[in-house]
C-alpha cells in the first residue's frame, strides 16, 4: 500500500474539474499516470494521455497497477468493480458518501480478486520524493518531505497538519497512508501499521485516529508488539455523543467509539497519545533519540 514511482496509475474520472486539477499535480510531482477513464470521452486525449471507456480497456492497452477514483458516490460501485475486474493491485477510493452496502460489495469483490482498497473517503497516498495518488498537498515541501516516519490518518486535513508539524521538527515521511473517514474501510489502521512495520524505510509510525468505530482499539494489540515506536493522536475528545462529526465513521454511539476507550487501549499498548497535533515533532525527537 506504499506507492512507488514505478507504479502505473489510472485515473477514473480524469476529465472532471477535480480529476484534471489533481492529475496535473500528480504528473508534475512524478506519479506515472498512464491514462484515464471516462466512457463518454473514450478514444480522446486529456492532459496528453489516453482516455479509455473502462479500466478493462486500459488494462488491455498497456496496463496499470493503481487506480484512483474521482467518481461521484452513486457511480462509485460500478467504477470500482471495473477497476477490480481489470486487475488493479491497488484501488484508491477518494469518493465520500458512497452508500455503505456499495462499499461492502466493492470491498468483497476486491478481497476476492486480490485488490487492496484504500478508503473510501480518503485523501490518498503520498510517498514523498517519489509520487502521490489522491488529493494531498505532496508538492508542498512544508507538509511532505522524504524521511523515515510513516504516517497513517483517517483525515486528510489533520494528516496534512501532522505531516507539517513533523517536517517543522526535521522529520520527513517514508509514506503517508490515508485510510479514510468512512465507517467501513478497505484498509484499516491495523493493516497500515503492519505495512510500516515491514517497511525498511520507516523508523517510527504516527497514527492519526478519530472517534467512532474500533480501528484504534483493533490496532492497539499489534502496536504493542511492534519493534518501531508508534505515537498517536486521536481527534474528537470534545465531540458530543450521537452526532456524526463530518466523517461518516466519526460518531460516538452510547459507550461505543469514544475518545476515552481509544486512548486507554493505545496507552495500555504502550503507545504515547498526544494532546495536540503540535506535539508530534517533539514526540518523535524523544522517541527516536538514540
Amino acid at each position, binding site marked *: 500500500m506504499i506507492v512507488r514511482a514505478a507504479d502505473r496509475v489510472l485515473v477514473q474520472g480524469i476529465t472532471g474539474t477535480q480529476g484534471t486539477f489533481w492529475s496535473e499535480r500528480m504528473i508534475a510531482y512524478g506519479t506515472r499516470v498512464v491514462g484515464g477513464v471516462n466512457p463518454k470521452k473514450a478514444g480522446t486525449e486529456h492532459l496528453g494521455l489516453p482516455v479509455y471507456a473502462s479500466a478493462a480497456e486500459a488494462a488491455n492497452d498497456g496496463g496499470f497497477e493503481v487506480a484512483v477514483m474521482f467518481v461521484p*458516490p*452513486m457511480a462509485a460501485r460500478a467504477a470500482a468493480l471495473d477497476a477490480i475486474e481489470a486487475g488493479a493491485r491497488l484501488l484508491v477510493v477518494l469518493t*465520500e*458518501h*458512497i*452508500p*455503505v*452496502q456499495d462499499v*461492502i*460489495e466493492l*470491498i*468483497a*469483490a476486491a478481497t*476476492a480478486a486480490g485488490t487492496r482498497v484504500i478508503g473510501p473517503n480518503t*485523501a490518498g497516498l503520498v510517498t514523498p520524493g517519489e509520487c502521490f495518488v489522491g*488529493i*494531498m*498537498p505532496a508538492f*508542498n515541501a*512544508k*507538509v511532505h518531505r522524504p524521511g523515515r516516519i510513516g504516517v497513517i*490518518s*483517517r*483525515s*486528510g*486535513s*489533520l*494528516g*496534512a*497538519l501532522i505531516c*507539517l508539524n513533523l517536517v517543522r521538527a526535521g522529520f520527513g515521511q517514508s509514506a503517508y497512508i490515508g485510510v479514510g*473517514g468512512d*465507517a*467501513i474501510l478497505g484498509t484499516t489502521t491495523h493493516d497500515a501499521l503492519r505495512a510500516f512495520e515491514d517497511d525498511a524505510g520507516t523508523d517510527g509510525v504516527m497514527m*492519526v485516529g*478519530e*472517534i467512532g*468505530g*474500533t480501528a484504534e482499539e*483493533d490496532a492497539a494489540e499489534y502496536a504493542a508488539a511492534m519493534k518501531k515506536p508508534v505515537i498517536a*493522536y486521536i*481527534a*474528537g*475528545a*470534545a*465531540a*458530543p455523543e450521537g*452526532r*456524526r*462529526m*463530518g*466523517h*461518516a*465513521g*466519526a460518531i460516538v454511539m452510547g459507550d461505543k467509539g469514544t475518545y476515552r476507550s481509544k486512548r486507554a487501549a493505545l496507552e495500555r499498548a504502550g503507545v504515547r497519545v498526544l*494532546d*495536540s*497535533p*503540535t506535539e508530534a515533532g517533539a514526540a518523535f525527537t524523544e522517541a527516536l533519540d538514540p
Partner: protein
Amino acid sequence: MNFEEHAAKPLLETAGIAVPKRRLVTSAEEASSAAKELGACVIKAQVPAGKRGKAGGIAMADTPEAAATAADAILALEIGGRAVERLLVEERIAIAREFYAAVLNDASAKSPVVLFSTLGGMDIEDAAAKDPQALRRCVVDIREGFGHREAEEMLGGLDPGLGASGVAKTLVALYRLYRDTDAELIEINPLALTDDGGLVALDCKFILDDAAIPRQPDLAALGAKERLTAIEARGRELGLQYIELDGNVGVLANGAGLTMATMDAVRHLGGRPANFLEVGGQAYTLTQSALELALANPSVKSLVVNFCGAFARTDVMTEGVVTAWEELKPAIPVFFSIHGTGEEEAVELLRTRLGMEPFDLMDDAIKAAIEAAR
C-alpha cells in the same frame, strides 16, 4: 436516518413479516377510540430513541378509558430530550416466546451480519451476556446473499422447539428488506412467537444509511426529522456541517479531523468550543456562508479559523472568510492559522485586506481566541 416504530413497521409488512394491527394517534381521545376498535392494547410513545419502556413510554390498556389515561400520561413525557407527540396504539398479542432478529452493517466484518437470538425482549447485549448460546450470528457474503440454506444453517441445533422454518423465512425476508432499503440496521425486538404458532414483529428499529438517501428519496421522506437548532438547520440548507455546542469560542476549520482537533485543542487549552463547523470536502468553496453561520451563534465571543489545505485550497477558503468579514464587520476578534495548499496566497490576502497576520501554530491562535473570549 432513524425511523420511528410507526414508520418502520409498514416496511416489515411489505417484506411479508407480520405486525400487529395498530393506529397512530396524537391525543387521548384518539387513543380511546383506537382501543375501542382494537380491544386490549399496548400504547407506545413514538420517538426515535431507545429505552422507551424504561422512560415510561410504553403502557398496557384493557379498556378505552385506560387507554385514554395512559395516552395522557405518555403524551406528557419527554424521552431522550424530545416531547412525545405521537403514540402507536397496537392490539395486544398473546405471546408464547420472545425472540430477537436483526440485520446490520458490521464494520469489523466489513459485511452484513444477520443476528438471531431465542432471548428477545431485552437489550441484545444483555441477552448475549445472559446466554451466549442463545445468540447466533451469520456474517453474510454480500455477493452471495442470504437465503434459506444460510438461514437454516445459522439456526441449526439452536432450539428444536422454535418452529425453525418460520424463523428462517423471517430472517430471509429481513435480509431482502435490508438490501432493498439500503438499511444500516433493521432490528425486530421482540419477534414474538404467538400462542397459535405464528411470528409477529412487536417492535422494529430501522436506520437508513444516510449516504443512500439520494437513491431512496421516497423512503427517506418517512424518516424521523433530526432535532436541529435553528443555526444547525440553516447549515443543513447550505450544505454545511454545523453542530452547536455550549461554549464561547467559535471554530471554523476545513476537514472533519482538523475541525475536531481544533475543538479539542480549545477545550484542552482551557476554553470552551461553541461549535463544530467544517468546510472540508466539496464544501470548501462555501466559506463565506460558513463564517455567517459561525457568527450567528450569540454566545460566540471570539473566533478561531484553522485551515490546513490538502484537497481544500486555503486561498479559496481565506478569500471567502475575508470577503464575508469585510461585509459583516463583526464586533468579535478572529485568530487565524493557515497552512497547506495555497498558503502563500492566503496569507497575503489576510495581510492586504484585513491587515492581519496568521499564527504559525494553531495552539497559539487558539490560546489567543480563548483569552479574547474571557
